[in-house]
């Protein structure tokens, strides 16, 4: 703790706090283009400069810790003029195509230029034309729009430990690219999209499928159905000025019908199905010793891709249950048309996901064509959906509440918390407990697996047996957990964990790479809270109690891990080379 002064206002601060953060305590937001709450300060943009009163030297507030007795000025004529010049310099190095840029109206650079009232270009334009990299079909790299803030490189290397992105060349030639100057699609990129969620400009952008979705919706020959991922409902409102965590499930159902979908399903339902399969798998391995432990969750396509590239020794530990998106896709082209007597070849499955990697998942292997067709046809991220709503001119906020199509629309509380870190684990434990004990838990909430701690370790006792669990999110946190498993295996020691949940993005899907911009831990916590409240408000808290899940098994699949379930709802994994040539 210490005391300092900012703009003549006394401020108290904790040790190590930066000037930038301390200034927020006195209601000053020092402008910056490179600092993001998720990444360590790099000092790249040079906008956040401040002065110590009485000196002329300017220091970067993003990376300078505030010290006892410091007297800081955050704006005076000279500071504002210098910031303005730097901003004009950045602008001189940035293409002028705001009107047709994906970030138009939602761009940190554009906003700041507007705030500074820059009306003319004083300096010469020095923009390097660089090829656009569309090779991943999920994330588009447009390096000429990059302002070299370094956020994407830091999240890719430090937060995600993927090291697909890198800066190449030097000086004014500096550019972002897949490391080694190859195509991103040939790199170790796992398509998590965290780079795109952190980019302040339009340099990294999700592949846009909205036009394709409009096309299929208008095609009289197609029967379009849709599914909404758990975490979308608590984030989509941010696109309309609502608070993070605002639960808009029922408005989304209404919206999607108005957009023209013939059936509106909920990925929360298929999450319940995933749990039925995965919890059964766990019980098989834990109680009946059929298969190796720990069991590792596989709902996250970036995590699956990461494992297939970097942790192939863990393949046998992976749950073979497909992700909720793919389970919904497979059922929407078999169970649904069979029940409704529709031609499955006409069904188009669109999913609304918080995630860019889901665009990759729909064709990641032959198993994604289990219905005989591509199970899921198109994926929109939350950000794309927001644009679609605006294109359609729908007054989203004032839509009436509607219900989903019940066949695959009703969900349990366990299904909804899939969207946050720890949620899959919690949901699986609720059902695994039931499968083992034939009873339901009295208290279904596992507080130890909740929250934004990078790795959460705890244990749960089921019928006298201790189940050790770990939950990791943010791919850089995986190493620690997996190494503990490896070490134990090597030394023939007891297993550190029996069950591991991994989600690639920090916070899980609520912090997904396709979610609305402006994510931070506060936003993540608010979105997670929205899901936990949804869970609490649910009549059914456990997947196995969902009446429509029961109906699905009774009328169609038989039992979890049945032959039919195996065919439709399970997949295999294979090592993938880190670099393709």
């Amino acid at each position, binding site marked *: 703790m210490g005391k300092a002064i900012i703009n003549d206002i006394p401020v108290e601060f904790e040790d190590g706090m930066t000037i930038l953060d301390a200034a927020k305590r006195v209601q000053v937001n020092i402008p910056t283009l490179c600092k993001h709450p998720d990444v360590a*300060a*790099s*000092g*790249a*943009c*040079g*906008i956040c*400069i401040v002065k110590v009163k009485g000196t002329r*030297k*300017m220091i*970067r507030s*993003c*990376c*300078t*810790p505030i010290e006892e007795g410091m007297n800081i000025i955050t704006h005076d004529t*000279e500071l504002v*003029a*210098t*910031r303005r*010049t*730097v901003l004009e*310099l*950045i602008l*001189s*190095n940035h293409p002028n195509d705001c009107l047709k840029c994906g970030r138009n109206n939602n761009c940190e650079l554009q906003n700041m230029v507007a705030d500074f009232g820059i009306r003319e270009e*004083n*300096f*010469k334009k*020095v923009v390097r034309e660089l090829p656009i990299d569309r090779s991943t079909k999920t994330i588009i790299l447009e390096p000429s729009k990059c*302002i*070299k803030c*370094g956020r994407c490189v830091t999240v890719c290397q430090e937060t995600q430990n993927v090291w697909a992105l*890198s*800066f190449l*060349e*030097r*000086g*004014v*030639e*500096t550019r972002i690219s897949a490391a080694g100057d190859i195509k991103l699609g040939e790199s170790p990129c796992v398509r998590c999209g965290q780079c795109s969620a952190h980019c302040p400009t339009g340099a990294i952008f999700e592949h846009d499928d909205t036009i394709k979705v409009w096309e299929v919706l208008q095609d009289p020959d197609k029967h379009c159905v849709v599914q909404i991922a758990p975490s979308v409902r608590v984030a989509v409102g941010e696109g309309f000025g609502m608070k993070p965590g605002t639960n808009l499930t029922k408005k989304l159902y209404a919206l999607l019908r108005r957009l023209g979908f013939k059936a509106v399903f909920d990925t929360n339902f298929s999450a319940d199905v995933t749990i039925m399969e995965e919890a059964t798998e766990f019980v098989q391995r834990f109680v009946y010793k059929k298969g190796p432990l720990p069991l590792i969750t596989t709902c996250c396509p970036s995590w699956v891709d990461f494992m297939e590239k970097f942790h192939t020794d863990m393949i046998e530990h992976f749950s073979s249950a497909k992700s909720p998106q793919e389970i919904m896709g497979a059922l929407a082209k078999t169970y649904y048309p069979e029940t409704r007597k529709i031609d499955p070849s006409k069904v188009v499955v669109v999913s609304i996901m918080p995630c860019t990697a889901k665009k990759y998942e729909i064709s990641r292997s032959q198993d994604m064509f289990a219905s005989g067709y591509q199970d899921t046809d198109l994926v929109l991220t939350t950000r794309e959906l927001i644009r679609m709503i605006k294109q359609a001119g729908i007054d989203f906020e004032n839509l009436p509440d509607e219900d989903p199509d019940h066949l695959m629309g009703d969900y349990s509380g366990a299904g909804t918390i899939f969207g946050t870190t720890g949620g899959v684990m919690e949901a699986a434990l609720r059902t695994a407990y039931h499968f083992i004990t034939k009873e339901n838990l009295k208290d279904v909430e596992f507080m130890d697996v909740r929250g934004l701690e990078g790795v959460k370790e705890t244990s749960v006792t089921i019928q006298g047996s201790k189940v050790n669990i770990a939950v990791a999110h943010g791919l850089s946190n995986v190493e620690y957990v997996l190494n503990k498993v490896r070490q134990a295996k090597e030394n023939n020691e007891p297993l550190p964990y029996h069950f591991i949940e991994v989600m690639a993005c920090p916070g899980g899907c609520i912090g997904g790479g396709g979610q609305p911009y402006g994510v931070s831990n506060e936003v993540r916590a608010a979105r997670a809270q929205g899901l936990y409240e949804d869970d609490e408000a649910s009549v059914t808290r456990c997947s196995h109690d969902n009446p429509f899940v029961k109906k699905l098994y009774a009328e169609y699949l038989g039992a979890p891990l049945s032959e039919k379930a195996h065919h439709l709802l399970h997949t295999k994994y294979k090592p993938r080379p880190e670099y393709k040539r």
Partner: protein
Amino acid sequence: MVKLSMAQLDSFKRKKEDGVVVRVGMSSCGVAAGSKDTFQKIQSELKANGIDAELMKCGCLGMCYAEPLVEIERHGVLEGTYGNVDAKAAAEIIQHHLVKGNPQAAEISKYRIVTSEKQIRIVLRNCGVIDPENIEDYLAQDGYQGLKKVLTKGAPDKVLEELKLSGLRGRGGGGFPTWMKWSFARGVQADQKFIICNGDEGDPGAYMDRSVLEGDPHSVLEGMIIAGFTVGASRGFFYIRAEYPLAIERIQKAIDQAHEYGLLGEHILGTKFSFDLEVRLGAGAFVCGEETALIASIEGKRGCPTPRPPYPSVKGLWGKPTVINNVETLANVPVILNKGGEWFSQIGTKDSKGTKVFALTGKVKNTGLVEVPMGITLREIVFDIGGGTANGKKIKAIQTGGPSGGVIPEQFFDTPVDYENLQKLGSIMGSGGMIVMDEDDCMIDIAKFYLGFCVDESCGKCAPCRIGGTQLLGYLKDISEGKASEDDLAKMRRISVAMQKASLCGLGQTASNPVLSTLQYFEEEYRTHIKDKRCPAGKCSQLFNYSIIQEKCRRCTLCQRNCPVGAIPGDREQGFWIVPEKCIRCGQCFEVCKFGAIKR
């Protein structure tokens, strides 16, 4: 060799020997000038004449303008320094000086060099005196005596006190007090600390550090070992740019020899103190001379600076406290500890103590390495040591501090040189480049050259440096081509100031210095370029207006035949003229005309 003990160290001390020593300067520059031939000739001459003399290969003697250099010493007294000694001259010198015993012989007086007494050699004390590849030579010159004193007293705080008393400041350019840097690192608790010697000298025209590394490697080694002992580090790195192969070779040899003699490794000189060193090569990025970028480079990362704080002395290489000192700073350390901080503090000015090595180049007669006490005036350096201009033209300015420095016009030449004074004049001390310019040098051209260097070397991380530098260079180019407007000068000032204030590291913060200082002192020259489209120094070729002086033209057709764009019509009957619209101002006609008939 058995590892040395403290007592044994003294046995190497130089005794006033009888006999003759002949030294040949064999640094990179000497070798390039042909000193290998000189050496061989002397060797054979000595043998042929039966003269019993010790022939030594030594480091840089500093007088680059007169390489190859030879010195002859008798009974420890220097009898003569000879310059421009090729094989023929070598034979003459040996003949007269040693065989006939007449050092004053008129036949060899043309080779004799008299150096200015204004130089004081502390850093360069052994350069050109000892054989850098022989540790015993260094030991003979009180080598490792500073370390011995430090280890005998055994108190790191004593070292800090002595350094504080000496007033030594970092010679890499920043001028940060060395004792303070060391005491920060000493004050941090850590399981591992590091010492790094910054040998990434990259300023155009500067070679102070190379000369020390090549000519006296052990003094830098000794400085690092003392630093290690003082801050509690057990490992150190020499970061040397790969373009210095001879320096790398000699440092490696010095490390190996120090190991052999028990001056590096476990239990140095039989004490509990252990310290080891290794060499890391820089890949040629100028910005890797900046502390944090240098650390990133050693760690194997992209060589880009990171924000400070945390300072490397608290959190440096691999997150551990790290002291990074420049070659010249470290070479000062052993002498200070051997002779005492009090002695060192007698030299120099109030705030800048000791000496500074400069690489004096440009339009000056005696180019070379000079070591002068702080406080000496620029005029003394340029005229008394440098001998003024070689061509008799008027000296216009001096550029100090390398690409990050500024240009100081002649009217300020009486300023005593120290860190603060140079900064007040809009330049910096830098690592010690000093380039003298005369009337033929165009200030826009100079600014363009230095800024161009920094633009090339910008790591690209921070916006002010990355984009600001490029923009400035664009304006300078426009000015030199007559395409700029006077409004551009205000824009240039605005960008320059923003770069100074908002760049992340020293490179960006100082990259605009050449522009600002030339604008400050030579604004008229800028305006002449812009308004009159004329370059007074005759450097900016795009501003030339070539024409043929008919009275001088002999109609030889050479210009016409050499013009690459056919801009010179005419024939021997009518004469020749240049069509300005076609002329690309390449200067071919000017070059080839034998009669001075082309005007520009």
